């Protein structure tokens, strides 16, 4: 049940983020929408690894090493998402740096004003 809720939320965030990225004309707004979609993707990936009634893949007093197979959830998606979040920040910073450079040289953030690459 919880996995379904989280997955639905993640897909909704992806849709909202895509809509924002494709319908806005300000570049900063497009980047904000991209981060929202990024959060949604991470949420979907973590929700796929969730199993009902199980707990986090960390062994201590609460989960002994012997019974780990029947008690913990899938750790592989978590490891994937962990790296994806850090890379996502790097990508956001890179996009923002290019945005700043674009504004510095052209003086505008509206994509309708940048028509050199249009055909």
């Amino acid at each position, binding site marked *: 049940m919880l996995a379904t*809720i989280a997955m639905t939320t993640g897909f909704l965030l992806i849709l909202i983020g895509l809509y924002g990225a494709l319908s*806005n004309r300000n570049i900063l707004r497009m980047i*904000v929408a991209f981060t929202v979609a990024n959060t949604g993707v991470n949420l979907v990936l*973590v929700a796929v690894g969730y199993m009902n009634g*199980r707990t*986090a893949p960390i062994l201590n007093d609460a989960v002994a090493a012997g019974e780990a197979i029947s008690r913990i959830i899938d750790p592989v998606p*978590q490891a994937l998402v*962990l790296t994806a979040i850090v890379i996502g920040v790097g990508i956001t910073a890179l996009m923002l740096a290019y945005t700043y450079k674009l504004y510095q040289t052209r003086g505008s953030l509206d994509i309708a004003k940048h028509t050199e690459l249009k055909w």
Partner: protein
Amino acid sequence: MTLSIGMGLLLSVAMVVSAIMATRGKRSLGISILAAGLASLLASVMFLLLAAPDVAMTEAAIGSGLTTFLFFFVLGRVRRGEHD
């Protein structure tokens, strides 16, 4: 069990609302960035409910300060160029 399902529903509604606030073009850009930051902070609690404390910690450490600062810094530079 029902407790976490209820919290998940509430967080889900809040995240969708803040995502809509972040992507609607009518509000000011600062509010959009703040709402996106809120969506990422709430996603961190959602990760915790999904039994992924590592991911939740990453999202909380990164989404709170770093991303918000990067956005607001560029926004501040752009704003200063426009108004002065």
